[in-house]
């Protein structure tokens, strides 16, 4: 039914362009949180829009496009992460050279290398809160894993992480 599409491509194209304009920042931001890398986040956004264009998936309006794009970027990023994991299993050296978080983050593995200010800010967190934050931020563990390890509910992890960032924001505000 290729023919069916191109006649109606005016609106498709319009929605496509408008959605890119409107949702790029949010999608990039979301992809960044999942992939922890700005370039990879860009690649992810480009690739879901390319796919949308190629599939010519017809969506009613911007709300539908938004839901479609956010789900697409989520799935895409999870796939990227899965591939990274497979790669790292197959090649340790590859992982070292192309770490999952190569440039944007201060290398999470080396707490000792963190700036003194950052270290003391983290140390100032309440003990459980601190432990959870370190596991998430430095050991890169998922909320589920942390909850399991510590025998806590995911809700607790969520709220402790919220607390941690709230405190750190205040402590590091002038410094960062």
């Amino acid at each position, binding site marked *: 039914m290729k023919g069916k599409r191109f006649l109606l491509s005016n609106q498709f194209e319009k929605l496509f362009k408008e959605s890119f304009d409107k949702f790029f920042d949010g999608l*990039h931001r979301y992809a960044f949180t999942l992939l922890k890398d700005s370039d990879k986040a860009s690649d992810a956004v480009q690739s879901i829009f390319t796919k949308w264009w190629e599939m010519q998936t017809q969506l009613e309006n911007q709300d539908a496009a938004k839901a479609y794009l956010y789900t697409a*970027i*989520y799935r895409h990023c999870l796939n990227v992460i899965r591939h990274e994991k497979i790669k790292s299993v197959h090649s340790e050296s590859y992982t070292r050279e192309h770490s999952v978080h190569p440039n944007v983050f201060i290398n999470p593995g080396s707490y000792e290398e963190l700036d003194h200010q950052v270290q003391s800010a983290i140390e100032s967190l309440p003990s459980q809160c601190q432990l959870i934050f370190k596991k998430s931020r430095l050991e890169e563990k998922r909320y589920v894993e942390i909850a399991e390890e510590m025998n806590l509910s995911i809700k607790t992890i969520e709220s402790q992480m919220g607390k941690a960032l709230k405190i750190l924001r205040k402590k590091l505000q002038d410094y960062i």
Partner: protein
Amino acid sequence: MSKENLLDETLISKFIAGEATPEEAILVNDWIAASEENKIYFTQLEQAWTFDKKSSGSSLKKEMIWSALEQTINKTQGSKKELSISPYRIAAAILLLIGFSAAFYFFNSSKQSPSTIVWETRQTSNEVAELNLPDGSAVKINRKSVIKWQRKFDGRDREILLEGEAYFDVAHDPGKPFVVSTQEVKIKVLGTAFNILDNKEQKEIETIVTRGKVLMYTRDRQIVIEAGMKGTYHKQTKELTLTKMKNSNSIAYATHSLSFSESTLKDVTDQLSRAYGVQFIFENKKIQDCRLTTECQNKSLAFIMDVISESLNLTYTIKNNTVYISGDGCI
């Protein structure tokens, strides 16, 4: 963070930590976009996570990615043009007079695309559908077709996009031209009825007029087609030509009006097949050459088959959209 806002650090932190579901990510991003204050607060929380001034935002990247996407878009649009050799056949049935001067206004007006316009869609699979447009115009949509129209017709034109075939009975409104767009040719009328048909087997676009007049035009060419005439747009040469029509059987799906004069049974069943959405199976293929002269207005398929069977001495059965014809007929 503004007080009236329901988002708290828990959800934002969850997002920053890469734990948000798509729905949660939408909530957070909508909240960020809601005010500059929110954005600053988010950036600070994000920095408390990255221990760094670097932020996830990047307007430069947006431009880069858009230009990369534009290449994809242009590439596929290029190939679409190749594909569009698939033909359109546009038939206009009943039309009122259109002034020549109007033609120059058409192209400009059809360019508008106000962002506020809401488009409605109707698509058919194996049925002929009828619907009323917001201006009181009526449409019959043939099988495997799709039309889109503005919900309230609040643009400068009453603009319709069509892929497939549809019969329009257009309400008179000289102030708001009625435009049906196909890929390369447009049909514009000021209150009339006409039929547009997309015939995939043909490499041209045809407009058949049975009453009144219609203007068929491209960017730099135009023809006025009068009743009983057919206008043809040739995709390869991009020329428009006029020929005389023998009958309007090809739009019988909408009119159920058919006329045959010494036509072969094969021709007759081909037209019936198109008009009624059925297929024919002949027990004896030789009878397809039998000739027939008849006329029917708004009759059921069973009625027409009765007439044919009677005149050619055949028997038929209809089962699941298939008509089985047996007998030796004229042979």
